[in-house]
């Protein structure tokens, strides 16, 4: 049984409790099956968080990871920034753009 820390909404609060396997389970819970393209965004978010100190916004993912905004909307439908953050085990992004 996996035990992890989450906030009231269900976002993971401990960076180190996240695993690849958990990401797959989190994604499945919101109806997303992870492909290589999803992983590219998630790996970027994971790597960027400790250096940047906050969750990357859509714009940051698109410009630094080279994934077009349109594709992010296709991969994580509806609310891409929040859904990516959830699967990557990071807080909701707080940046405006």
């Amino acid at each position, binding site marked *: *049984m*996996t*035990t*992890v*820390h*989450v*906030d*009231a*909404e*269900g*976002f993971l609060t401990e960076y180190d409790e996240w695993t690849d396997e958990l990401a797959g*389970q*989190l994604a499945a*819970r*919101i109806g997303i099956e992870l492909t290589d393209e999803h992983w590219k965004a998630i790996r970027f978010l994971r790597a960027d968080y400790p250096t940047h100190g906050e969750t990357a*916004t*859509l*714009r*940051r993912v*698109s410009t630094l990871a080279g994934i*077009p*905004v*349109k594709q992010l*909307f296709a991969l994580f*439908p*509806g*609310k*891409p*920034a*929040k*859904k990516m953050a*959830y699967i990557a085990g990071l807080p909701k992004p707080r*940046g*405006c*753009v």
Partner: protein
Amino acid sequence: MTTTMPLTVPDFGDEATAGRKLAIICSKGNLDMAYPGLILANAALGEGVETHLFFTFWGFDMITKSRMRDLKFTMLGNTATHLPQGLGGLPGMTAMATRQMKKQIQEIGVPDVPEFLEQIVASGGHLWACRMSADMMHLDESDLYDDVEGIISAADFIEKTDGAQIIFV
């Protein structure tokens, strides 16, 4: 809070935002007045809200190819700069204030106006140009940013945004 699997699933409110619509009317062509509409549009799209922007009067500059890269910020009449109003009238002050604002915007990772519009369109946003403004300024679709979907009347815009929440900037 500690939890064991199965985890709480956040409510992304996909169903709540389905059908929510936002109309943003951009009527100003000053650099500082261009951003509020763009930022709100971007935020709404990121939340899954259908978003339409209507560019009218001086806001037309934001989608006019020859001007969209050259919006300016002036200290004149803007007390929020907390500098003496007379300074803003000195030669070169508008250029200097514009350079400074562009630098500050870039430093926080916010794109310039054309690139911002590109991101809004990529996120599914709709751009509309005001018919009366086009007529006033003697401009047609060839003068406008390519992703503008059409030049339409105010009445057309109200029709397209039936049921939307409206923001006027």
